[in-house]
C-alpha cells in the first residue's frame, strides 16, 4: 500500500473517507482510479518537488477525478515505475487540470494542517512537524500564488476553526462548518461553468462535513486521552452515541451530495464516481468510529503491487 505516514496521526487525513469500494469496481475502473492516484503523486513531484510527494494520501484523488470528469480531459497514460515501487511499472495519468488542481489543494491543506499541529501536539510530534515545516514553506508559497482564492478561504476558515475549538463549540453543524467551507472552495476549482461552480461548492460543503465528522468520531478516544477538543466530547456524548450522531448526520450530508452529484454532466469516469459516492461513501459512514486499521479490507486501500 502506498501510504506515507506523514499525514496520519493527529493531522486529519482529509478525504481519507471518500474512497471507492474496491470490491465493487471493475478491474478497468480500479486501474483507472489507481492511475489517477499514482498520477497525483507524480504531479506533486513535478510541480512541488520530491518532498511534497510524501504528502500523498487518498485525499484529493476525488477532486482530480471530478475535475477531469467535468472537463473530459483524458491526459496521457504511461506505464512507469516509481520510487515506492520501482520494480513493477504501472499506468499513471499525466498532465490534466484535475491533477494539477488537486496537487495545489493538497499542498495548501497540508501546510495548514502542519501549522495547526505545531500548536497542539505532544513534544515528539512537534519536533517532527518542526523539521518538516521548512520543506513545505516554498511549495506552500507557490500554491498560494496559483490558487489565491482558495488560500484565502483556508486561512480564514482555519482561524474560525481555532476559535470554535477554544470556546469548546458543542453544535455539530457549526463545528464542521470551517472544514466544509474549505472543501467547498477546493471543489469549486473543478468547475468549468458558473452553474457547475455552485453545484460543486455545495457538494464540497457536504463532503467536508462528512470528512470532519468521521474524523472526529475516529479520534474520539485519543482526543479524550490527550484532552483535545472534539465536538462529540464537548457535547457530552458517549462514544456509541457519538458514532450514532455522526452516522446520522453524515447520511443526511451524503443524501445532499447525491442531489448535487446528479446535477453534474460527467464526460468520463461516471462508473468510478458512482462507486465513490453511492457505495464508498456509505461504507465509510457505516465504519464511523473505527480506526483505519480495524476497517474491513476492500474499502479504498490501493495496493502498490
Amino acid at each position: 500500500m502506498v501510504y506515507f505516514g506523514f499525514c496520519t496521526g493527529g493531522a486529519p487525513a482529509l478525504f481519507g473517507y471518500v474512497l471507492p469500494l474496491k470490491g465493487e469496481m471493475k478491474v478497468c475502473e480500479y486501474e483507472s482510479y489507481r492511475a489517477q492516484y499514482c498520477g497525483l503523486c507524480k504531479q506533486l513531484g513535478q510541480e512541488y518537488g520530491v518532498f511534497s510527494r510524501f504528502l500523498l494520501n487518498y485525499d484529493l484523488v476525488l477532486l482530480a477525478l471530478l475535475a477531469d470528469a467535468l472537463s473530459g480531459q483524458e491526459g496521457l497514460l504511461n506505464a512507469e515505475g516509481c520510487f515506492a515501487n520501482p520494480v513493477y511499472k504501472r499506468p499513471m495519468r499525466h498532465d490534466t487540470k484535475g491533477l494539477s488542481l488537486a496537487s495545489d489543494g493538497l499542498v495548501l491543506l497540508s501546510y495548514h494542517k502542519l501549522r495547526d499541529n505545531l500548536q497542539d501536539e505532544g513534544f515528539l510530534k512537534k519536533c517532527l512537524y518542526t523539521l518538516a515545516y521548512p520543506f513545505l514553506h516554498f511549495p506552500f508559497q507557490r500554491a498560494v500564488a496559483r490558487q489565491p482564492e482558495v488560500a484565502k478561504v483556508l486561512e480564514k476558515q482555519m482561524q474560525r476553526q481555532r476559535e470554535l475549538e477554544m470556546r469548546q463549540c458543542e453544535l455539530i453543524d457549526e463545528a464542521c462548518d470551517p472544514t466544509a467551507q474549505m472543501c467547498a472552495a477546493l471543489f469549486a476549482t473543478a468547475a468549468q461553468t458558473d452553474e457547475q461552480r455552485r453545484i460543486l461548492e455545495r457538494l464540497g460543503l457536504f463532503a467536508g462535513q462528512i470528512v470532519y465528522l468521521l474524523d472526529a468520531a475516529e479520534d474520539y478516544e485519543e482526543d479524550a486521552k490527550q484532552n483535545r477538543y472534539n465536538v462529540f466530547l464537548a457535547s457530552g456524548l458517549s462514544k456509541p452515541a457519538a458514532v450514532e450522531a455522526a452516522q446520522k448526520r453524515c447520511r443526511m450530508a451524503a443524501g445532499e451530495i447525491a442531489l448535487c452529484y446528479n446535477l453534474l454532466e460527467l464526460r468520463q469516469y461516471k462508473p468510478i464516481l458512482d462507486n465513490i459516492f453511492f457505495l464508498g461513501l456509505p461504507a465509510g459512514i457505516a465504519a464511523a468510529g473505527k480506526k483505519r486499521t480495524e476497517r474491513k479490507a476492500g474499502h479504498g486501500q490501493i495496493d502498490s503491487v
Partner: protein
Amino acid sequence: MDRSTAYNVLGLPQGAGEEEVKTAYKSMAQKYDVENYEAGPLRDDAAQKMNEINEAFDVLMSFLRTGQENTSLNANTGSYSSVGRYPAIRQLINTGRVDEALAELSALQDVSDDAEWNFLMGSVYYYKGWLDQALHYFQNAVRLAPGNREYEAALRNLQNSSQGDMNGNPYMNNDPSAAAMNCACNSCALMCCMDACCGMGRGC
C-alpha cells in the same frame, strides 16, 4: 429541441421505443423532482433539468405516436408562488442572502410557535448546510402545521436521507441508468491496450 437531443437528454440510444422512453422518463423525473431540492440553493437547477426532461419526453412521445416532430418549446419555466406571512424573508433566502434572512428571523418576537417561522428557519439552515438545525426546525414546522405539503416535503427529504437514502442511486431499484454502468470510457480502453502490450507493465 430535436429528436436526437431529446434521446440524449433521456440517456437513451437513438431510436429507442415508447416503453423505453417512458421508463427513462419516469426514473429521471423521480431523480430530478423539484421536491427533492425543496428549500435548497439548487432548486432552480433541478427545475431547469426537469423542464429539459419534460420537453424531451414531449418531443419523443409526439414523434413516436404521430411520426411528426414537435419542436415547440415548453413554456413552463417553473415559477413558484410564495405564500405565507414572510414573503420578503423568503425572497432573501431564495436569492442566497441567508445571513440577512437569519438575522431578520432571529429578531422577531414570540414566533417560535409559528409554523412558517420554523419552516423559514429550517430553510435558512438547510441553505447553509446545517442539516441538524434544519431538521429540527422542519420538524417543528410540520408539527405546528400538519398537512402542509411544502413543509412535509422538506422534512421528508432530510428524514429519508438520514436513513441512508441517496437520490438517483444507481445501485438501488431498477434504475435504467444502472445499465449505463458498463465501462466504455476511453481510458479503460487504453488500459486494456496497455494490459495486452505489457501486462500492466508487469512483464514486457
